[in-house]
């Protein structure tokens, strides 16, 4: 079996480019997908433990970790990733139909998505922490 993919000429290293905002959103889309996956694994296992082994030691440890400062920070990142993935995913669906590729719309959408993510994250955590 061929062990490595075919040797192809490489493009310049990533530091050479000044990344446009769309590219930054694109890579954050992937990154947020991975973060969402780990968070989903964690929370689905927590749900299973709450139902199946409600008094187990591992569940208490997990709960202790989840409401600690690091846990809360992770969940802030997680909700932010969720909003990013949701909004940029909807834009991807529009892109699949060929809508929204003009530079004017791209820039407008970048600003809109960025502001909406920050707004929604702040609102969510204001509700969670203070209401």
């Amino acid at each position, binding site marked *: 079996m061929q062990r490595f993919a075919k040797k192809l000429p490489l493009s310049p290293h990533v530091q050479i480019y000044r990344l446009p905002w769309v590219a930054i959103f694109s890579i954050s889309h*992937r990154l947020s997908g991975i973060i969402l*996956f780990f968070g989903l694994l964690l*929370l*689905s296992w927590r*749900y299973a433990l709450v*139902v199946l082994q409600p008094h187990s030691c591992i*569940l208490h440890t997990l*709960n202790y970790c989840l409401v600690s400062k690091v846990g809360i920070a992770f969940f802030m990142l997680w909700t932010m990733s969720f909003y990013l993935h949701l909004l940029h995913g909807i834009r*991807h669906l529009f892109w699949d139909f060929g809508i929204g590729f003009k530079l004017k719309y791209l820039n407008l959408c970048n600003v809109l998505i960025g502001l909406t993510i920050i707004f929604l994250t702040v609102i969510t955590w204001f509700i969670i922490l203070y209401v």
Partner: protein
Amino acid sequence: MFKNFNLGSSESATAHWWLQRVTAIMLIPIACYLVIALMSSVIHGNNIQSFVFSNPVVLLLGITISMYHAVLGIQVIIEDYVSCLILRRWIILLVKFITIVSVAASILAIIVSVKNNF
């Protein structure tokens, strides 16, 4: 043509692309519900009553579909960034295994919680 036959994704690429989009559209409402359900339970303590918003049917659909969507997406990411084909295959297999075990545990938990309510 047949040299690299079984090295890429396990199903056909078109089906992969379509399933990714279809699950994405399904997840737009379901994932919002799922995030609220799971997050509120973390904030409100560690008993089953903390799952206030947890309709078992929606929870089941949400966890299954979002796990499937996640596996499809992570498979694409791994295929893009891991160039060693053997390692690539093993990592994809590992991710699929972890996901299937997690989904099975969640489904079992949902069934048990429904049974306990009656």
